[in-house]
């Protein structure tokens, strides 16, 4: 117990599960919604489409949904990083296509082994990210302009690299395996158990450290509830995959990247610096944070993720063509990040918003495909959902400001 006076005006949660629920409800009423609106949105969308077409929630379709999400979602993770800085990167779509094209041409036309071609594709992303990032940070040109120039340049680059045929078909098992490999159902269950166990152990260890340092800890019932929810969710996912083709490698890659970047953002010094630069660049600068290096690193990471997404997309399609990485790639990636809860103004968001936002966007597109809806309506609905998400975010931001949160 510290000797510090506790401010008598403080509203603190009652101990126990009841307190946690009451605290949760208070935070919701104050606009601290967290991922709640998105999760509710996903639930609503799924119910609507399931009612309209009973095949929507079938394991086969849900697995397809995950496969559809993996490429764009990976790009979205990179977009989240850039948005956290308060910046934007318009080149991620075109870059994803170009990186995939480089990989495809090296592998198919020059006999480079699959795994090396994949690395070359990723390196293309990294290099371009470095160039764009240096242009933004050293010449102080707005990222909007530099990445817009990139969008144009890499679209042209894609056509150039693909050459006269305009398409390259992929047959290399290492490449096509990325989006088309499935692990046996047992692996899905094992992974579910492992992840739940790892989460539990980590939380318990952290709790023990806090108790040793005499810091306040939430009640154990909170931890138990969280672990239970996680276990249920992972088991549901494992059950769905097991009932179809098994655990997709693409899902492991995508979700693995989401988790890795979430840890980067929340648990490392670099991640903390990204949030600081996005929240108050001047304060970060005065605190001695190397602002320009942080921004450069983020652009490099985002472009690498764009390349990764492009490679997964090519793997899924078994080809790279002139429309790879086309316009809706960019729009979906940004929309997913925003719908998932990352603010366009910087400083707020998480890697999980790429996952949740992608679920929303690709669920809508998948559902509409099942219903045979034409693409004009698909575009309009997706646009509407993005607007809705941004509006909910803006309204909850006003609520947060009224209650004293950023």
């Amino acid at each position, binding site marked *: 117990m510290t000797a510090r006076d506790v401010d008598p005006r403080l509203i603190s949660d009652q101990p126990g599960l009841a307190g946690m629920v009451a605290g949760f409800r208070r935070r919701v009423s104050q606009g601290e919604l967290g991922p709640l609106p998105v999760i509710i949105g996903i639930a609503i969308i799924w119910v609507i489409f399931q009612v309209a077409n009973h095949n929507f929630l079938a394991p086969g379709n849900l697995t397809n949904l995950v496969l559809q999400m993996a490429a764009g979602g990976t790009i979205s993770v990179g977009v989240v990083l850039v948005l956290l800085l308060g910046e934007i990167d318009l080149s991620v779509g075109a870059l994803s296509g170009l990186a995939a094209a480089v990989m495809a041409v090296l592998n198919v036309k020059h006999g480079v082994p699959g795994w090396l071609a994949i690395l070359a594709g990723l390196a293309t992303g990294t290099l371009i990210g470095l160039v764009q990032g240096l242009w933004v940070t050293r010449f102080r040109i707005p990222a909007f302009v530099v990445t817009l120039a990139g969008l144009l340049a890499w679209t042209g680059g894609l056509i150039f690299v693909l050459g006269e045929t305009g398409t390259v078909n992929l047959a290399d098992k290492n490449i096509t395996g990325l989006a088309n490999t499935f692990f046996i159902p047992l692996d899905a269950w094992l992974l579910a158990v492992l992840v739940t166990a790892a989460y539990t152990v980590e939380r318990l260890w952290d709790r023990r450290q806090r108790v040793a340092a005499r810091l306040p800890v939430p009640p154990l019932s909170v931890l138990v509830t969280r672990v239970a929810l996680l276990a249920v969710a992972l088991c549901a996912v494992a059950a769905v995959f097991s009932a179809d083709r098994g655990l997709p490698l693409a899902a492991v890659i995508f979700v693995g990247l989401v988790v890795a970047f979430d840890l980067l953002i929340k648990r490392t010094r670099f991640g*903390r610096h990204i949030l600081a630069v996005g*929240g108050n660049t001047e304060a*970060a600068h005065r605190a001695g944070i190397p602002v320009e290096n942080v921004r450069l690193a983020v652009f490099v990471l985002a472009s690498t993720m764009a390349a990764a997404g492009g490679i997964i997309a090519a793997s899924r399609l078994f080809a790279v063509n002139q429309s790879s990485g086309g316009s809706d790639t960019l729009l979906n990636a940004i929309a997913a990040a925003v719908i998932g809860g990352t603010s366009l103004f910087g400083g707020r968001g998480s890697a999980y918003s790429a996952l949740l936002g992608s679920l929303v966007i690709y669920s809508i597109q998948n559902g509409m495909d099942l219903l045979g809806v034409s693409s004009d309506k698909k575009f309009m609905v997706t646009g509407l959902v993005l607007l809705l998400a941004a509006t909910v975010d803006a309204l909850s931001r006003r609520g947060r400001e009224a209650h004293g949160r950023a």
Partner: protein
Amino acid sequence: MASTPLLELRGVNKRFGAVQALSEVDFAAPAGEVTALVGDNGAGKSTLIKIISGIYAPDQGEYLFEGKPVQVNGPQAAVDLGIATVYQDLALADNLDVVANLFLGRELIAPVRRLDETVMEREANQVLDSLAVRIPSVRTQVAGLSGGQRQSVAIARSMLGEPKVVLLDEPTAALGVAQTAQVLSLIRRLRERGLAVVIISHNLADVFEVADRIEVLRLGRRVAVFAARQTSSDEVVSAITGAKAGEERLATDINMEEAER
């Protein structure tokens, strides 16, 4: 008792475009003393502080720390020397919590490159306790704190690096009565620890409460240095405004009211 001041600037010039913000300004901050830097708006106080803290580089002039000339080419260099600054706009990141702000730029790392949240939180509690700062929780977002609490967090942050010099730009400007008293007693505690404390303040009452020395800037030049206990509010005000002390009582009264506002 050191005869050379801990921090000293000599002959500093700084120009912004067509405006000569500082001309041949000398400044000294001895250890174990509170030096108040006063002057009207536009006198150059904030510019001088930003030069000391490394944000601006002077066009000309010497910068001496512990008697030796040093190169301060960025805020980090000043921090490394042991000069901590609390800015008027507090330089806090609203989207982060108190712990994150306290350790901004010098986050503690646990093994395997992760942030050591536990140790940072504990130290945050300790430093806030030692400064008698009341905050609901160190995990509150800074955006949710009152102006006085934010000021306290900013000052506490400057304490974490164990600095030798602390610069405070208008520390009591946004504070209520109790918090002003707290900050002033905090300033005295810093002096007792042997730090050199520099405060910019418009509030001459606060200045006379804590300062040992008063340096006056006017229109970019240093026009006077007073020992606080040997001068009066009148003298300081006339130095600030340029009116002669004693002459034209009426004008001086008006100026004093303006200075105190």
